[in-house]
C-alpha cells in the first residue's frame, strides 16, 4: 500500500510538472498505473529513465535558451571569438553520456531476462489471435473461451501465444508490456495481477480493418471465485430447454440459421467449423463481446446480430438477415448460457 501511494504521488508530481492537467483519470489502458509485479518492474525502469531524461532535457534546453538570450546580437556587441572546438570537451561529452547510458543499460538488461523467465508454478493459458478477437484456452482445465481472460489474483500466469491469421499484439498495460502473436510460431508473456480487478486489453499491432476494435478484458478473481468459475466453465450448456420458451426458439435459430458453421456451444453443437469464432458455451457470463468492442447487453446484441459488419468492418460473421423475432429469441438464448 505504501509503495502504491508513493507511486501515485510520483504520478501526480509528473502531471503538475509537465502538463498540469495532462493526466487522465480512469484511463483503463494506462501503462503508468501498474497493478502487478511485471508491470511495476517496467514502470520503475521507465521512471528511472524518465527522470534522467528530464535532467538532460533541462540542461540542454537551458543551455539553448540561455545562449539565445545571452548571446543575442546587439549593436554594441563585439565580434565573437573564433573558437573552432575543444578536444577536452569532445571527450567529456562522449564519456558522460556513455556513463549515464551504462547506468540505464545494466538494469535494462537484467529486467529483460527477468521478464522473459518462466515463473515457477505458473498457470498456463494459451492465447490465440484471430481477426479481430482473442481466444483463450486453459489446457489444464480443458476450457475454451474468448474476449475475457479470467485469471486468479496474485498468481503468476504464463501465456503461450500464437496467431491464427495475421500478426496481433497482446497488451494488458496494467499487467505487462506487449508481445506479438505470430502465425506459425509461439511467443510467451507473463502476467500477474495483485488484486481481484478488471483490466483492459488491446491488440497493439495493426491487424487489418477492425484492428481498433480488437480489444479484451482480463478479469482477475479471488482464488475461490476463480475455482468456481473453472468448475462452471467445464460444464456443458443445458440442452433441455422448455420447448415453449423463447430461449428454445433462440436455440433453434442458433442451430439452423448458420451460426453453427463457426460457433461452438459445448453440449449443443460440438463441431468446430473451418472459420473459428468465439465459443459461446458461457457467453452469458462474459460482460463484453465482439472482440470486447461491445458491452454484453440486449441493445448491443440487437445491433450486432442485425449487421455485424457495421460494427466491425471486415468481420467474418455474415449478416444472416435474421428477423426481429429471431434476434430477440437468440438474445434470450444467449442470455441463458451462463
Amino acid at each position, binding site marked *: 500500500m505504501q509503495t502504491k501511494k508513493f507511486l501515485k504521488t510520483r504520478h501526480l508530481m509528473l502531471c503538475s510538472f509537465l502538463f498540469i492537467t495532462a493526466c487522465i483519470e480512469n484511463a483503463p489502458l494506462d501503462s503508468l498505473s501498474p497493478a502487478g509485479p511485471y508491470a511495476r518492474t*517496467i514502470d520503475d525502469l*521507465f521512471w528511472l529513465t524518465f527522470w534522467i531524461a528530464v535532467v538532460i532535457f533541462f540542461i*540542454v534546453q537551458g543551455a*539553448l535558451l540561455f545562449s539565445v538570450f545571452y548571446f543575442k546580437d546587439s549593436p554594441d556587441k563585439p*565580434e565573437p571569438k573564433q573558437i573552432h572546438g575543444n578536444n577536452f570537451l569532445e571527450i567529456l561529452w562522449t564519456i558522460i553520456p556513455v556513463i549515464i547510458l551504462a547506468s540505464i543499460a545494466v538494469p*535494462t538488461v537484467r529486467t*529483460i531476462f527477468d521478464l522473459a523467465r518462466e515463473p515457477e508454478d505458473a498457470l498456463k493459458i494459451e492465447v490465440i489471435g484471430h481477426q479481430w478477437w482473442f481466444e483463450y484456452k486453459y489446457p489444464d482445465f480443458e476450457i475454451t473461451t474468448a474476449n475475457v481472460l479470467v485469471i486468479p489474483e496474485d498468481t503468476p500466469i504464463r501465456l503461450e501465444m500464437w496467431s491464427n491469421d495475421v500478426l496481433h499484439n497482446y497488451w494488458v498495460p496494467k499487467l505487462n508490456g506487449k508481445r506479438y502473436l505470430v502465425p506459425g510460431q509461439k511467443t510467451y508473456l507473463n502476467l500477474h495481477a495483485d488484486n481481484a480487478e478488471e483490466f483492459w486489453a488491446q491488440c497493439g499491432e495493426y491487424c487489418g480493418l477492425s484492428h481498433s476494435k480488437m480489444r479484451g478484458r482480463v478479469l482477475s478473481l479471488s482464488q475461490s471465485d476463480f475455482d468456481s468459475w473453472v468448475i462452471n466453465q467445464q460444464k456443458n450448456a443445458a440442452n433441455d430447454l422448455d420447448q415453449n420458451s423463447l430461449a428454445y426458439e433462440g436455440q433453434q435459430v442458433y442451430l439452423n440459421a448458420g451460426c453453427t458453421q463457426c460457433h461452438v456451444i459445448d453440449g449443443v453443437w460440438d463441431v468446430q467449423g473451418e472459420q473459428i469464432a468465439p465459443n459461446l458455451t458461457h457467453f452469458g457470463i462474459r460482460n463484453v463481446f465482439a472482440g470486447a468492442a461491445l458491452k454484453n447487453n440486449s441493445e448491443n446484441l440487437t445491433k450486432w446480430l442485425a449487421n455485424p459488419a*457495421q460494427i466491425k468492418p*471486415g468481420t467474418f460473421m455474415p449478416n444472416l438477415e435474421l428477423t426481429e423475432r429471431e434476434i430477440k429469441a437468440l438474445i434470450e438464448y444467449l442470455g441463458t448460457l451462463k
Partner: protein
Amino acid sequence: MTKIIEPKKQRNIFSRPSSETGVWSWITTVDHKRIGIMYGYAAFFFLLVGGLEALLLRIQLSQPDNNFLSAAEYNAMFTMHGTTMIFLAIMPISAAFFNYLLPLQIGARDVAFPRLNALSFWIFVAGGLFLYSTFLFGTAGAPEGGYLDEEVSRLASAPNGGWFGYQPNAGLRYSPGTAMDYWAIGLQILGIASLVSAFNFITTILNMRTKGMRLMRMPVFTWMTFAVSFLLAFSLPIIAIALFFVTFDRQFGTTFFLTEGGGDPVLWQHLFWLFGHPEVYILILPAFGIVSEVLPTFSRKPLFGYPAIVFAGFGIAFIGFGVWAHHMFASAISPVAQAGFGLSTMIIAVPTGVKIFNWLGTIWGGKLTLNTPMLFALGFIGMFVIGGLSGVTHSVVPADTQQTDTYYIVAHFHYVLFGGALFGIFSGLYFWFPKVWGRMYNETMGKIHFWLMLIGFNVTFGPMHWLGLQGQVRRTWVYAEETNLGFWNLIVTIGAFILAVAILVFMANWIYSRRKGEKAPFDPWDARTIEWSIPSPTPVWNFSKAPEIKSLDDFWHQKYGEDEDGRAVRREGTDELLLKLEEEGLNPDEEIHLPSPSYFPLILAFGLPFLGYAVIYKSIPLALIGVILLLIGGFGWGTEPLEEEFETSEETPDAKESSTYE
C-alpha cells in the same frame, strides 16, 4: 565581353533539345539547379497531400467513436500519410537540397552525371504518380471471407497495410485487391530514383571537388549528403529485395512471408527495418547538415568541433545499420536479441549527443542573429532533443514493450522527423532562398511561420506522449469513450490545424517573396561557404572560374581574419573583393561548356510505371509499352551526340537574365 556557347540550331532525330525557356526547357533540363527546384516543388506538393491526409486522420480522431471516416478509409489514409511523407515528401525535399547545393558547395559545374540526375527526378515523379494512381484504379476490400457493410470508396482504394506493410496482413489473402501492389511496386520505382541519385552524389563528391577542396574542408552539408548517399546505396537494395518478395507473394503465388507455405512473417519485419532504420537517418542527416551551415553563419563563429560533427554523422550512419530490431522489441525475438539491440540503440545516442553538444558549442559565445532560418535551426535543436530523449526511453526494452505501437511512438518520431527533419528543412529553405531566387523572403512572415509552427507542432505532438502512455494504440480508427482519451485527442486535432495555418503562411511568404521580395545581394548573410561567393540567383554556369579552396569555410576566411584575441576582424579590401567576385561571377571570361539538355531521362523514367501496371494487371500490351519506352530512353540516351558542335556567339549583358528562371 562574354562568350557563351550555344548548340547549333540544326535539327535531326538525335539532336539534343535546345529550349532555354518555357516548359520544354524544364522538362529536358539536366541543370542540377533546375532539377533541385523541381524536386523541391514536387516534394512540397506531396507534403501538402500528406498533410491533408493527416488532417483527415485528426478529424476522425478528434472525438471517441467518431464516424467521419470509415475504417477502410482511415487505414488507407494513415498508410498513405506515412508512405507519402517519407518517400514522397521528406526524402525528395532533401534531394532538392542535395541537387541544388552540392555542386555549389564543392565548386563544381554540375553533378558527375547530369542526365542521370534528371533520370532520378523523373523516376521519382513517375513513381509518385504511379503510387497515387491507386486512388483512380486501385481496389481494396475485406480479407478473404470477411464482410463489409458498405462499398469501398475511392478514398479507401489506396494501400491500407501501413507504410511498414507488415506481412501477412499486407499479403493477398488479408489485403485483397490491387492497392497493396501499387504500394509495393510504387516504392520499388521510388527506390530506383534514390539509388540512382545516391551513386551520382557519391561520384560527384569523390571526383568533382574543386582545387583545394579536400575532404576535411567540405561543408558539413556536403558531408551529410555523402553519408546519406551511402546509407541509400546500402539500405535500398534490402527493401528492393523484400518488396520483390512481397510482389511475388501477391502476384505469382510464392510464400516468402506466408506461414502456410513455410515462409516467415517475422522475416519481413527484419528486412523492412534493416532498411527502415537507416531510412530514419536518411531523413534526418540532411537536416543535421543544414543546421550545421545555418548555426555558424548566424552565430558568426565557426562550427564547433567540425571533425567531431563529421565523424559523429558517419558514426550514426554506420551504427544505424545495427539497431533495426528495436522496432521489434515486442515481436518474436529472443531476450538476447532484445538486450543486444537495446544496447546498440543506446550507443547510437552517443554520437547524436555529440552533435547536439557541438551545435550548442557553436552558438555559445556567438553573436546570434535571430532571423527565420536561425529560429528554425534553434527550434530544430530544441525539438530534436525531445525526440532524442524519448528515443532513449525506447532502448530500455521493457519500457518499450509498453510504449511500442502506441501514440508515444508517434510522438517520438514526429519530434524527430517533423521537429527535427522538417524544421531543419524549413531553416534551409529560408537560408538559401536568396541564393536560389535572387530575392529576400519576408522576415516578418517568416517569423510568424516559425512561431505558429513551433506552437502548433508542440500542441499536436506533445500530448501524444501522454495519449500513448495512457493507452492509445496507433493505427486505430476509433477509440472507446471509456478510455477517457477524448479531450487530449481534441487538443491534438486543434494543434494539427494550427500547423496547417503555419504552412499556409509559409506558402504565402514564398509566393509573395518570389515575385515582390527585395532584391537579394549575393552574400546577404555574411556567410561562410563558397556558394555565397557567386551571384544570386546562381548563374546557370555556377562559378565563372573554378574556385580554389584554401581552408574550411573558405569564403569567410577571404573576408575575415582574427585579431590577437581570436575575434573575427574584417579584412581590408573585403568590400572590393566582394565587388570583384560579383563582377566575375556574372561575367565569365572563359568559354563555359554546360551539359546539354536531353529528352531521354524522361522517356526512360516513364517506362517504369507501365511495367508496374503490367505486373499488376498481367497485361502484355502494357509491358510492351513499358519496354519500348525503356528501350527508346536507353538507346536514345546512349546514342544522342555527347557533344553538340558549338558555335560561339558574342554575348552581351543578357547573360545576367539568362541566369534567372523566371
